[in-house]
């Protein structure tokens, strides 16, 4: 029994007005979901069909089913690794308890589990790195953008540098960042892993620009009338920025932040691949080097995960924007 006949059976028992609205609702639902589902189905079919035609050195290119299977495998591996870790800690605690029973004055040392990071661990690492890089970039870009927007002089001074560095690929930055971080960030007990700092700074350098440019433009579009209001009230510089400039610039600023976060995510994967820093990029690279018959499917899982996470990050930014944006219906 298909959905339409089910709807009509249910609706037959409802009063007329309810039936009308139910029919209208289901039609809207079909139209809203139908097109995306159709697109997805066509894509899967095309993928399955094309995959069979491609022979690689690692066997046939994986179709959707092989990829789904590997996704499940990756999850199982993750669960197994977690069990192993839990078992390790249990054994350690048991041993310590045993020895403490014999020698109460003994100071136990606890070691942490050192298994290989799973796919999901790598996702976690990448997410933390991208957010750290993005937050760092925003902390630099937003205040600088505001100052650039307010001062023609600063804007003229900074603008050439922005134009110069904005198009630079993350892959060009990476060797420099790696060497500089290695030279400067030397500590016996570092708070963050060096690889994390390298990835984060590379992300920051690349995703700084859209936020910076958009904030500066947003600030310059503050209406002259509102500036006049500020002058009549003799608002101080700081109050002027907080009450007039920032709210005016918020719509543009968030547009910049969204673009920045998207760039940050793309850059991070590339940086992790090239620098062999922990994260999803390293996962892809390891699988590529690994070259087993499953590698292509596992890389495909990573590709889809990267896409989904990028999409989710963008949605999150959009939600944040809707919360703080005073412009309605935008």
């Amino acid at each position, binding site marked *: 029994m298909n959905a339409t006949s089910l709807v009509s059976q249910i609706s037959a028992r409802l009063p007329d007005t309810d039936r009308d609205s139910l029919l209208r609702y289901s039609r809207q639902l079909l139209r809203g979901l139908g097109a995306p589902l159709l697109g997805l189905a066509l894509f899967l079919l095309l993928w399955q069909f094309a995959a069979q035609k491609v022979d690689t050195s690692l066997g046939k290119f994986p179709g959707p089913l092989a990829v789904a299977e590997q996704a499940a495998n990756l999850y199982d591996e993750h669960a197994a690794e977690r069990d192993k870790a839990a078992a390790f800690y249990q054994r350690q605690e048991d041993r310590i308890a045993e020895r403490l029973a014999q020698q109460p004055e003994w100071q136990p040392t606890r070691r942490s589990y050192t298994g290989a990071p799973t796919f999901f661990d790598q996702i976690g690492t990448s997410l933390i790195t991208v957010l750290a890089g993005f937050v760092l970039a925003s902390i630099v870009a937003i205040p600088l953008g505001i100052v650039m927007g307010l001062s023609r002089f600063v804007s003229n001074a900074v603008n050439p540098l922005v134009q110069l560095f904005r198009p630079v690929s993350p892959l060009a930055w990476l060797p420099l960042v790696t060497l500089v971080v290695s030279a400067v960030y030397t500590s016996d007990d570092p708070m963050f892993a060096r690889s994390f700092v390298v990835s984060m700074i590379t992300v920051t350098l690349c995703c700084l620009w859209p936020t910076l440019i958009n904030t500066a433009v947003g600030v310059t579009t503050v*209406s*002259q*009338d*509102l500036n*006049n*209001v500020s*002058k*009549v*009230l*003799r*608002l101080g510089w700081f*109050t002027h920025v907080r*009450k*007039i400039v920032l*709210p005016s610039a918020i719509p543009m600023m968030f547009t910049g932040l969204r673009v920045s976060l998207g760039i940050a995510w793309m850059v991070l994967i590339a940086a992790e691949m090239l620098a062999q820093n922990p994260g999803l990029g390293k996962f892809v690279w390891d699988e590529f080097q690994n070259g087993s018959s499953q590698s292509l499917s596992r890389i495909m899982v990573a590709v889809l995960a990267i896409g989904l996470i990028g999409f989710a990050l963008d949605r999150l930014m959009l939600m944040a924007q809707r919360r703080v944006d*005073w*412009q*309605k219906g935008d």
Partner: protein
Amino acid sequence: MKPLLEISAVDMRFTTPKGTFEALKDVNLKITEGEFVSLIGHSGCGKSTVLNLVGGLLQASSGGIILDGREVSEPGPERAIVFQNHSLLPWLTVWQNVELAVKTVFKGKKSRAEMRDWIEHNLALVNMSHALDKRPDEISGGMKQRVGIARALAMQPRVLLMDEPFGALDALTRAHLQDTLMEIQRDLNNTVIMITHDVDEAVLLSDRIVMMTNGPSATVGEILPIDLPRPRDRLALADDAHYNHLRHEVLRFLYEKQRKVENIPAAEKKVAAEKKPDAEVSEAPTRRAVGSDL
């Protein structure tokens, strides 16, 4: 009686890419406390420039403006401005818009409770107590202008400056707001300078009408005292002979003595020359477009 505000020998020149443009030449005007003065003249005659000079948003090229014995050199809340397109902060509610002004002006002078009462009082004056939590895009153009007036009044200005406050409103809303303004002015006895294009509005509201000559080098042409008794009632005045006589005086000045000569090429040149200062003195047509979404 010593004037509250004195504009003496003010010239205003703007530097444009085509050279210097003299907008105002030797403007003199004295305004006493509690007086309601309208500035009227054709567009581009520099009315807004005069207002912005008094407001401190522009600095005179020569001559000066003295308020209360002190020279005006910068904008300030004692010369509150009601802008043509209301200029409310769109992200703040009606209440918060007035609050920003009150908190800034009376910082350390009024207690928190006194400020709250003062905000409420001023919004009640313009009959906006029902929409305190609405944002500007949720209320009509007339209401926005009411809030703009409340915000200006809340600064307790020595002089209230109004830049075509009702220019962007429909006729009915405008009449309603004019009545509100007359009531407020009767109760508070504010000193007001208002720019207007509307002859009826000028005659109805003013104690004196300052008629300006056409620019460039505009100046005060004639000053017409309006000695109609207050309170004034627009319906009764419609048939009043003296009212109509005053109205004719203004019209005669505008359309006989200072008739704009619309010689097409010359006019175009003049418009081009006036564009630059106009944009700065807030008479640009875009502003009207923004304000006209009733």
